[in-house]
């Protein structure tokens, strides 16, 4: 699933949004440093409360990041040859873009296991630094409603939705996601509809799969 994020710009946007939600600079930077997964961090901001609902947040993070299971499985044939202290730390830096690049390099017999670590570290530093810069910018500009900045998170989410759309295969899962999300949203608090809708879509996707 190649998601071509505008690297630094995406991190800046995340930092601005985190400032707008009310996270401190340290909290925003720490979130990027500990999680390092943009889409799930945006979902977390969308769900953010004070104090944060840790269990709901962790569950939503697990659902959004479950695609990593697939990535890890895909590079297993190559990474199994590494020692555990080489493979497991490298996996921390596996993201959509670096995974795709690594897999391509390994398939073409270019590069080795260290490729993921190298590309991942660069992306990681870029992500953490741009988050910090974005947060500082957000604090400086403020987020007045007249500028429409309160819409930025929703705008980013809808753009991400279009970017992740795979075409006809997504129609039936999306219909299930909408129905389940709508029903869940009407009675459950917080942001459980994100988890419920996402899981419903995945189940329909698996159910409709033809071998």
């Amino acid at each position, binding site marked *: 699933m190649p998601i071509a994020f*505008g690297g630094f710009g*995406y991190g800046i*946007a995340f930092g601005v949004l985190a400032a707008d939600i009310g996270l*401190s600079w340290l*909290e925003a930077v*720490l*979130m990027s440093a*500990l*999680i*390092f997964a943009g*889409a*799930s961090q945006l*979902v977390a901001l*969308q769900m953010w409360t004070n104090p*944060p609902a840790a269990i709901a*947040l962790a569950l939503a993070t*697990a659902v959004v*990041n479950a*695609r*990593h*299971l*697939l*990535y*890890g499985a*895909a590079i*297993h044939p190559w*990474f199994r040859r590494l020692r555990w202290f080489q*493979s497991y730390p490298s*996996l*921390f830096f596996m993201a959509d873009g670096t995974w795709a690049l690594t897999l391509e390099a390994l398939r073409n017999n270019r590069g080795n296991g260290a490729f993921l670590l190298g590309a991942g570290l660069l992306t990681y530093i870029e992500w953490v630094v741009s988050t910090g810069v974005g947060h500082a910018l957000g604090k400086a500009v403020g987020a007045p409603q*007249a500028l*429409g900045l309160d*819409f930025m998170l*929703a*705008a980013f*989410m*809808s*753009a*991400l*939705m*279009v*970017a*992740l759309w795979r075409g006809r295969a997504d129609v039936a*899962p*999306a219909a299930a*996601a*909408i129905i389940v*999300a*709508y029903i869940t*949203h009407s009675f459950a608090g917080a942001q459980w*509809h*994100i988890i419920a*809708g996402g899981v419903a*879509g*995945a*189940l329909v996707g*698996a159910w*409709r*799969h033809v*071998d």
Partner: protein
Amino acid sequence: MSIDPTVLAALAAMGIVTYLTRAGGFWLMGFIALTPRIEAGLRTIPSSVMVALMTPLVLNAGPAEAVGYTAVLIVMLTAKSDVFAAMAGVAGVALTRALMSGTLS
């Protein structure tokens, strides 16, 4: 420069869960094979999550937000850049709000 303990706990939980997704697929492959059906389900998750997240937002959108979402969609379908699309959406909302409040007329 501050960090709330409840925030730190939430961030740590999210960080651990994320690492488990990164390491878990690789680890599991040492024991079992991923069936095509499970793979198809996992592949469906990203778009489904975003659709679920957007559902109440779109249903509760006012005129300004409707213009914003339309701008995002148009830029995504033409320029295919999520950063530019989000900026276009924000601009669309700001412009519509200004027009509706009469500050531009």
